[in-house]
């Protein structure tokens, strides 16, 4: 089962690299949204791997709260760009 985590880490490197090298703010936001989803899914997989319910709760919280806060951040950046 740990091969799943290894493959996930390998895929996670792609958006991290993109967020580090791209200057455009929206490309960065896209990469961050991808990182948020992937990290929370990794936490869920680890919770199933360790059979730990508490880690799973944290993963689900990050999954829903992280995406919602990224939406708010996108709105704030749009307003800042407007003015």
């Amino acid at each position: 089962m740990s091969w799943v985590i290894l493959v996930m880490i390998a895929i996670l490197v792609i958006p991290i690299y993109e967020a580090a090298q791209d200057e455009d703010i929206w490309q960065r936001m896209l990469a961050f949204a991808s990182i948020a989803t992937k990290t929370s899914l990794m936490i869920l997989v680890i919770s199933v791997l360790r059979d730990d319910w508490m880690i799973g709760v944290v993963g689900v919280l990050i999954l829903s709260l992280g995406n919602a806060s990224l939406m708010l951040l996108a709105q704030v950046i749009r307003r800042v760009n407007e003015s």
Partner: protein
Amino acid sequence: MNSSVLIDIFSYGCIAVGLWFWLWGTWPLLGHRSVLYKLHGLSVADTLGSMLIVVGLLMKIPREWPLLMLALISLAIWNTVLGYVLAYCAVGHGHGHGEMLEGADTQGRTVSLRYGKLFSSGNSREVSHDG
């Protein structure tokens, strides 16, 4: 064949297909395409891949179904809404209803579509555009 072996095969299959979707959707991030192109691939592949992975986990440990169900529902709702909001914010840079598109014509001039009219940067002539 034992039923637990069958469930294992199904769950690992779901996880592997989900990981393949992840890779397929994330790879175009490295190219120099527009935000909308990348967003399209990423929102489709990320949501579907993540949901497949969660379904694979659900088959492995059905005891934790409330938590994994919550993860499935929040993935389906939030990722779609986030994709829409990101596209809206990235394209409509404050131009009223966000109706603005930009591109290049065959001569390399920048052409933008605003409020149903075509504007070209190469010459100041305004090109009317019906429909």
